[in-house]
């Protein structure tokens, strides 16, 4: 089966992905792909299975059925660290930083497997400057504001220079200024070749930012298309607002 990616070569191809928790099919035969260099969104009401979908792709949970291919390689059986090393970075719905470590250590710990360490400190500084976090480098992550924690988690997701970054609700719980900063950062990394796959409920931002949108409801993909197509899709309107 050839999946429609919108444009460009697919970095991530998912077919028939299924995850069952007890009697609940949290993800039910989902197929989609993410085009290289794109910003792709996965939308859906609360409880529709989006975060479970992300957890399956990043190896936190194991699927019951289906395949996940990243850059042509099957990854459904791999552990999270192996998937991360292949080039997928991620954030979580509720930030999951190493709270008792400093900002700098949060990045260092994710960077320590990099072969080229000679420029390690400069790279960390450049990255923290980009995220407006350098001045907070020696603070414990748990003492940052929620918005700063979101930024730090994003920085941690890109420290290994991954091909694909998966952001789980990057705009949730942060103010407009911080959300705008987040948008700028996503666009910056996209401009240097990073592909993004994100979940969020901030429709306006998502529709402005993304090239392609998939919508989930009750564990299934109910619509895929560009933002304009999704906006007017009756199945999406029904999923969000009911009949």
């Amino acid at each position, binding site marked *: 089966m050839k999946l429609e990616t919108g444009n460009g070569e697919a970095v991530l191809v998912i077919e028939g992905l299924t995850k069952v928790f007890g009697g609940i099919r949290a993800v039910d035969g989902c197929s989609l792909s993410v085009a290289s260099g794109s910003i792709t969104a996965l939308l859906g009401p609360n409880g529709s299975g989006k975060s479970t979908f992300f957890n399956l792709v*990043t*190896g*936190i949970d194991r699927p019951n059925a289906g395949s996940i291919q990243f850059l042509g390689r099957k990854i459904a059986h791999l*552990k*999270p*660290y192996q*998937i*991360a*090393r292949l080039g997928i*970075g*991620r954030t*979580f719905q509720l930030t*999951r*930083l*190493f*709270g*008792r*470590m400093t900002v700098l*250590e949060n990045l*260092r*710990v*994710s960077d*320590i*497997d990099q072969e080229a360490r000679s420029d390690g400190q400069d790279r960390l500084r450049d990255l923290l400057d980009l995220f407006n976090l350098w001045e907070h480098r020696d603070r414990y992550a748990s003492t940052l504001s929620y918005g700063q924690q979101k930024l730090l988690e994003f920085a*941690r997701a890109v*420290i*290994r220079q991954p091909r694909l970054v998966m952001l789980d609700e990057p705009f949730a719980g942060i103010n407009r200024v911080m959300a705008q900063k987040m948008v700028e950062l996503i666009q910056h990394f996209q401009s240097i070749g990073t592909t993004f796959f994100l979940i969020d409920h901030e429709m306006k931002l998502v529709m402005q930012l993304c090239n392609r949108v998939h919508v989930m409801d009750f564990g299934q993909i109910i619509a895929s298309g560009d933002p304009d197509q999704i906006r007017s899709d009756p199945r999406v309107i029904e999923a969000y607002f009911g009949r």
Partner: protein
Amino acid sequence: MTRPMLPIAVVSAATVAFAALPALVNNYYLSFLLVMFMYVSLAGSWNILSGFAGYPSFGHVAFFGIGSYTAALLITRADIGWPIAVVMGGLVAGVAATLIGTVVLRLRSVFFAIATLGLAESLRVLAQSWDGLTKGGMGISIPPAGDVSVFYYAMLVTAALAMLLNYLVGRSDFGLRLLAIRDDEDAASSTGINTTQCKTAAFVLSSILPGVAGGIYAQYISYIEPAAVFSVLITIQMVAMALLGGAGTVFGPVIGVVVLSVIGEIFWAKFPFIQRGLYGALIMLVVFLMPGGIMDLLQSRGVLRRRRTI
């Protein structure tokens, strides 16, 4: 002197000072210090796995017991000199940890704690019932070898190695990975850290010196039995000491050992009939009032800087 060298210099100076003690004090004090060094080895080793990586082992006495029995059997049955037997005790404990770790490290938090507690109890029962090898509840008598100062020095070296190990882990990238696992294992794995490898390494590192300490203790006491060297009380002691000082810090466990050893000795001398009850109440107070331990208290009050190497 550079800052990273300071803790090593302090430990080295203390080690030299303690090395001079046998010429100055009587056997009572030497025995007290010997047991204190044993607990520095145990609490310090426990700290590698449970303090840094956050995997609460309640069965670490298993490695102490394995070391004790390995050394005792090698000395009494294979006629091997005690220093070599003690080293073998540490190695066998390390091998056992490698095998056990592949199973129990699949579990987390309270499940891991219960599994390790069960493991130590299983080994105690095994040692109790395997008459042919261990002489069961009769225990093994070991011919004495040297006076208390010999074992005092051996335990001092083991304690110094435990502290050095903590220091090296505390300032290494490996230590940073363990701290990441402690804070959020899934997130750590998602950043590319091979958590299984790190946890197994920590488990093995935390098992070797308890094995060595067990071997030295066996030869020092000249008699071991399952109930003594697989006693859950030894685990409780090492956990309480590490928590009191500050789990996950380099010097916390040694501070906890010194404080609890001295207090325990005072309780024993002043209140011999209720000393265990008092000791238990003290541990409960520590957990309630100072969950981060003495190090956390000193750091939060600004007495000590927050650094990973202290």
